[in-house]
C-alpha cells in the first residue's frame, strides 16, 4: 500500500539556471520564491509561512553567510524563523528533509523550503577549492584529489569490476543534454554527441569535460504544507510520501567498495519502505548526476537495475523519456546545471512539474510517482524523497 503523505507540495519555483551576471544569491532566491508565490494565489506568504529551510553550501562565494535571515529579510518575511542547512551539494535535500520533519512533527503547518548558490562570478580555480571543502581534507585534498578526481576513482573501479565503458558514461551526458535542450530553465540548451563527449578534454581521467556538471548560478523554492491543508492552497497537490537521509565515510578511499554509493542505497531502501513502493513503481526520477559515472552507479544503487548493469541500462535507453524509468528529464545536474545548494529542491521542482502535468515537451505521460536523490560531496550524505500526485 502506498504510504500516507508526510507533507504536501502546493507550489514550487525555480530561477533560470546558468550564468546570472550581476545578481547576488539573495536576488536569485527571490526569483525562485516569487514564482512559487505567483503559482499559488491562495497563499499569503506573510501570513501563512511559519518557517523557512534553505540549503546553501558556501559563504565564500559572496562573503555572505547567515543565509536564513538574509532571505527572510529580502523576501519581506521577517520575523519568521529560518534555518540554513549545509550538506555540501545535498544542502537543499537536507533542507527538504528538515522541512518535512517540521511539518510531520505538527509544530508548523506551512513552510518555505529552498536552496541557492551563486558561483559563476568566481574563477574555476576558486570554485574548485570551495567545492573541495566537502571532501576529506587531510588525506583527499592533501593528496591533490579534486571532486572530478574522486568520482574518477569510482569510475575506474566500476570499469574494472563491471566492464563499464567510457562510451556508456558519455551516453548519460548525451541523454541529459537532450532533455535540457527542451527545458527553458536549463543552463545548456544544446544536444551533444557521444563523439563530442569522448573528445572533450580530460579533467580527471577517465572523466572528461562533458562527464562533469557545470558551475552554475541558481535558486529553487517550494511551499510545503500539512497534507490536511493542501486543498486550501491548490487543486494540484503533490504529496511527499517518503523522506530519508543517510551518510557514508567522508573519505572515498576508506569505503568498502568504490563502485557503490552506500548512502544512496540506505536512504532509498528506507524511502521505498516508508512509501510502500518499489523501484519499478517510479514513473520519473531526478538523481544526482554530478558526474556521468554517478548516474550510472545510482541506476544500480537506487534499484532501477541490478548491480553492475548501470552501463547497460543507459545503453538500452531505459532512463530515457519513454524508457523504463525516465531519469533526469530536467537535464539533470549535468545539463540543467548544478548551483550546489539549490540542486535538491530543483530536483523536487522537476518532479513537481512532472506529477502536475506541467513539464511541457519533456512531460512523462501519466506520471504519478516520482523520486529525487540528492547527494553531498562524494556521496558522504544523501537524501531521498518519494512523491505522489495528489487527487
Amino acid at each position: 500500500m502506498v504510504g500516507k503523505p508526510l507533507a504536501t507540495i502546493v507550489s514550487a519555483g525555480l530561477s533560470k539556471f546558468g550564468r546570472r551576471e550581476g545578481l547576488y544569491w539573495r536576488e536569485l532566491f527571490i526569483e525562485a520564491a516569487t514564482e512559487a508565490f505567483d503559482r499559488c494565489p491562495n497563499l499569503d506568504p506573510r501570513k501563512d509561512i511559519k518557517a523557512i529551510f534553505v540549503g546553501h553550501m558556501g559563504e565564500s562565494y559572496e562573503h555572505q553567510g547567515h543565509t536564513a535571515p538574509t532571505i527572510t529579510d529580502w523576501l519581506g518575511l521577517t520575523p519568521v524563523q529560518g534555518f540554513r542547512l549545509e550538506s555540501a551539494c545535498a544542502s537543499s535535500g537536507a533542507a527538504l528533509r528538515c522541512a518535512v520533519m517540521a511539518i510531520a512533527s505538527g509544530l508548523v503547518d506551512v513552510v518555505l523550503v529552498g536552496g541557492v548558490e551563486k558561483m559563476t562570478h568566481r574563477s574555476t580555480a576558486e570554485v574548485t577549492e570551495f567545492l573541495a571543502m566537502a571532501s576529506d581534507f587531510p588525506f583527499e585534498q592533501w593528496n591533490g584529489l579534486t571532486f572530478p578526481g574522486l568520482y574518477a576513482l569510482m569510475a575506474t573501479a566500476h570499469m574494472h569490476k563491471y566492464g563499464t565503458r567510457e562510451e556508456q558514461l558519455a551516453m548519460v551526458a548525451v541523454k541529459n543534454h537532450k532533455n535540457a535542450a527542451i527545458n527553458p530553465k536549463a543552463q545548456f540548451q544544446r544536444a551533444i554527441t557521444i563523439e563530442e563527449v569522448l573528445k572533450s578534454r580530460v579533467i580527471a581521467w577517465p572523466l572528461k569535460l562533458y562527464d562533469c556538471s557545470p558551475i552554475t548560478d541558481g535558486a529553487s523554492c517550494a511551499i510545503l504544507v500539512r497534507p490536511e491543508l493542501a486543498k486550501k492552497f491548490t487543486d494540484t497537490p503533490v504529496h511527499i510520501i517518503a523522506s530519508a537521509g543517510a551518510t557514508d565515510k567522508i573519505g572515498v578511499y576508506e569505503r568498502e567498495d568504490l563502485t557503490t554509493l552506500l548512502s544512496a542505497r540506505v536512504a532509498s531502501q528506507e524511502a521505498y519502505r516508508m512509501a510502500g513502493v518499489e523501484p519499478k513503481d517510479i514513473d520519473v526520477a531526478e538523481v544526482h548526476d554530478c558526474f556521468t559515472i554517478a548516474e550510472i552507479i545510482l541506476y544500480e544503487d537506487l534499484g532501477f537495475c541490478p548491480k553492475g548493469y548501470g552501463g547497460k541500462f543507459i545503453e538500452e535507453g531505459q532512463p530515457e523519456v519513454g524508457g523504463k524509468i525516465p531519469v533526469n528529464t530536467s537535464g539533470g545536474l549535468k545539463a540543467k546545471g548544478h548551483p550546489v545548494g539549490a540542486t535538491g529542491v530543483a530536483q523536487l521542482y522537476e518532479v513537481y512539474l512532472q506529477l502536475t502535468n506541467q513539464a511541457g515537451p519533456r512531460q512523462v505521460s501519466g506520471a504519478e510517482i516520482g523520486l529525487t536523490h540528492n547527494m553531498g560531496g562524494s556521496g558522504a550524505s544523501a537524501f531521498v524523497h518519494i512523491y505522489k500526485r495528489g487527487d
Partner: protein
Amino acid sequence: MVEVSSPPTIESFYKYIAEGKLMGVKCKKCGKVMVPPKPLCENCMAKDLEWIQLKGEGEVISFTIIHVPPTSFASIAPYAVAVVKLDEGPKIPGIVKGVTQPHQLKVGMRVKAIFEQIPSTQAWPQWSRYYFQPI
C-alpha cells in the same frame, strides 16, 4: 621523534611521516587497524589504541590522472592519485610518483610508500608528504 604514547591524531600521523614512517593505530580490543588514526575504533568504539608501523606496501584499488588540479598542485599536473589497499588492511589515497598516463597504472599493481620532508613554512598545515611508487 614522535613518542609512542602520542595520541592517535592526524597531527601525529604526519609527524611520523616526517620521520619516514607510515603508521596506523591498532585497536587493543578487537584488533582493527586504522589509517588514518582515529580516536575511536571504528569497529568497536574502544579508545584503547596503539600505534603500529606499517610496511607501506600494498595494491592499487583504483586510480585517476588529475589534469585539472587544485591551485596548489598546478605545478605537478598531470599526476596520478591511487587508492592503495595496504597489506595490513587499511586503504589510503596517495599520489603515484612518475605516472602521468593511465596505461602506466593498473588496478592490482603493487606499490610502496616513499616520503618527502616538506620545508617548514608559516602556512597551515605543516605536514610532510608520503607518495607511492610502483614496486
